[in-house]
């Protein structure tokens, strides 16, 4: 069963085998796997439950308000604040992500084994889990039919420069190319986990509580004894009822930001590494103006990529947003801004994403009882970002752009590819860049080196017998690619570990 605040009229008390906090890529897979194995599962999800019928009624900025935390503007503070959009709904960030699917690169898995002592997670070990997840969410290569002109233009430029590029794989069925992946797919074409793993978990008896905010984790005699929280009215944010869950096993899948936050808030010091080692895949958006009509909002926003520099930790991926989301960032003030707005149909945009293995951040409990995120971008990673911006700008000019906006403070729009050199000749500081980041990872990293990691290779807390973590926070380093498939595959693997050791964990 799935309950929202509307279905609940009193305080709730539950005593399941397993309580899972969070229903995103990690929590949903875990809920399905454990309930399918006959365990009694309760899931607490802070966000609401929405279907395509609701998404259709949302304007993009309403989606930002309803489906995202902090209106899509959760900030990581540092020399330049970085916007970190996080989903908050049944299905978590899978509801509002681009849908891009990559398997974990083999070299990343090897690094985890060598550096952090992660066992049982080689490419060969993970292969069956990737296969099962890909089948469940229907991972398929995007059809050029729904790519849209924004993607085609970038492909044209990359081809002209001879740069390796291709179509991305997405979790989708019958995509119509409506350009709304990030605002809730209006056709249920994107196979977010509320369309597959969650219904399957419900079929196997799991009880999903939407609008249920987990607040307290109670530890007694060295074990998690209960989770307490509130049922929230999603219209007013008022607390309506209390919910208390006393499980045999707790799985935290609240995401890389909220998993360490809820633990720290409850003074549960799993490790000195908890909340540290945050990586986020910093990203920049480059825009260009063409003479030709593009209407970049028609078509899949993130359909293709350029991986010519992926060995340097730089990946370029499509990104296009509707004018009400894009123009306020790039547009000038006054009449000049409106003039730019009048050209939005001639805009193209692409994203630069970097592996931030040299940088790191922290998640702490802030003064307003919300996560306080800090992040320091290392100069080596900044160099990657600058190179990525330069490459994207070259590609746009190779495809016939009239001008390119790098989004870098103090640098005027490029009128030709010669202007791009400014990116390397000027002394640019981190604060000159307006960045976004999309894939927070690493704040409860896994491995067998207890002093350096928070959980073991299967997500079990080193210091608590009945607490697992199953979300992006357990990945020790940046992936360099979109992480949803990695999160799901590891969640499936770790669920099997719990099932195989049921007697140990469910006593």
């Amino acid at each position, binding site marked *: 069963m799935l309950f929202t605040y509307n279905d609940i009229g009193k305080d709730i008390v539950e005593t399941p085998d397993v309580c899972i906090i969070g229903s995103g890529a990690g929590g949903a897979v875990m809920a399905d796997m454990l309930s399918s194995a006959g365990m009694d599962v309760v899931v607490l999800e802070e966000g609401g439950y929405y279907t395509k019928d609701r998404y259709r009624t949302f304007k993009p*900025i309403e989606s930002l308000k309803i489906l995202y935390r902090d209106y899509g503007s959760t900030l990581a503070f540092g020399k330049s604040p970085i916007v970190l959009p996080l989903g908050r709904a049944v299905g978590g960030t899978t509801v509002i992500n681009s849908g891009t699917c990559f398997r974990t690169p083999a070299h990343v898995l090897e690094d985890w084994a060598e550096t952090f002592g992660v066992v049982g997670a080689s490419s060969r070990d993970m292969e069956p889990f990737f296969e099962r997840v890909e089948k469940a969410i229907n991972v398929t290569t995007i059809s050029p039919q729904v790519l849209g002109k924004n993607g085609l233009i970038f492909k044209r430029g990359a081809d002209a420069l001879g740069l390796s590029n291709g179509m991305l794989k997405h979790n989708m069925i019958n995509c*119509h190319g409506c350009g709304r992946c990030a605002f809730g797919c209006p056709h249920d074409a994107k196979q977010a986990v509320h369309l597959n793993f969650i219904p399957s978990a419900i079929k196997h008896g799991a009880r999903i509580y939407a609008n249920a905010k987990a607040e307290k984790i109670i530890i007694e005699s060295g074990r998690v004894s209960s989770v307490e929280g509130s049922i929230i009215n999603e219209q007013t944010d008022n607390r309506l009822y209390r919910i208390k869950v006393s499980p045999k096993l707790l799985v935290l899948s609240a995401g890389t930001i909220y998993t360490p936050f809820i633990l720290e808030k409850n003074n549960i010091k799993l490790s000195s590494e908890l909340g540290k080692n945050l990586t986020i895949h910093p990203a920049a958006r480059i825009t260009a103006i063409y003479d030709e009509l593009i209407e970049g909002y028609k078509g899949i926003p993130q359909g293709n990529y350029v991986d010519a520099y992926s060995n340097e930790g730089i990946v370029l991926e499509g990104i296009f947003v509707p*004018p*009400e*989301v894009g123009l306020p960032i790039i547009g000038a003030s006054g*009449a000049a801004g*409106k003039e730019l707005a009048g050209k939005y149909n001639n805009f193209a945009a692409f994203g630069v994403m970097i592996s931030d293995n040299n940088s790191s951040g922290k998640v702490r409990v802030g003064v307003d009882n*919300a996560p306080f995120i800090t992040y320091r971008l290392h100069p080596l990673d900044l160099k990657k970002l600058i190179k990525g911006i330069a490459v994207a700008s070259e590609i746009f000019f190779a495809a016939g752009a009239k001008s390119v906006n790098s989004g870098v403070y103090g640098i005027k729009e490029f009128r030709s590819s010669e202007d791009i050199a400014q990116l390397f000749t000027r002394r640019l500081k981190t604060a000159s860049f307006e960045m976004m980041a999309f894939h927070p990872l690493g704040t409860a990293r896994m491995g067998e080196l207890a002093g350096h990691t928070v959980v073991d290779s299967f997500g079990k807390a080193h210091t608590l017998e009945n607490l697992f973590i199953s979300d992006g926070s357990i990945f020790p380093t940046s992936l360099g690619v979109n992480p949803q498939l990695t999160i799901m595959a590891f969640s499936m693997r770790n669920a099997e570990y719990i099932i195989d050791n049921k007697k140990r964990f469910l006593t």
Partner: protein
Amino acid sequence: MAIKELKVLDQKLYMITQAVADTLAPAGGAFQVGAQDVDAALLFDNYIDRLGKLPLKLIKTVLYLLEYAPLFTRFKRFSRMNQEQRLNYLRGWENSRIASKRNLFVMIKMLILMTFYSHDAVAQAMNYHPECLIKDEDTHAVYLQ
């Protein structure tokens, strides 16, 4: 404009927001519709009602700063300036060498312009017509709502 329509701002802050919005998106130019025509200040007020206490305090503080800080440099409140003076003043924030000053302004600008460009009349004026690439009865229904 009755105060009761406002969810977050008081009348004073609403007036300041109106002045900022009118400067960011004045009527005329590339297309006729401006912030005043769609009451972008009211849209902004209604939009930010679910923000947390801390960001709301920050927004209100920045709006007051935008209004009163020019008293020390230009001997005039922002809302008393003419359009050209206002635009120059806002550009000062937007292009400031102090990153935090720039970022605070960008936050206000983003939220105001997001609500402005979201208005149907503005989308129409911009010739912005979102639609799905593959059209069938189902996709038609998406944009009817």
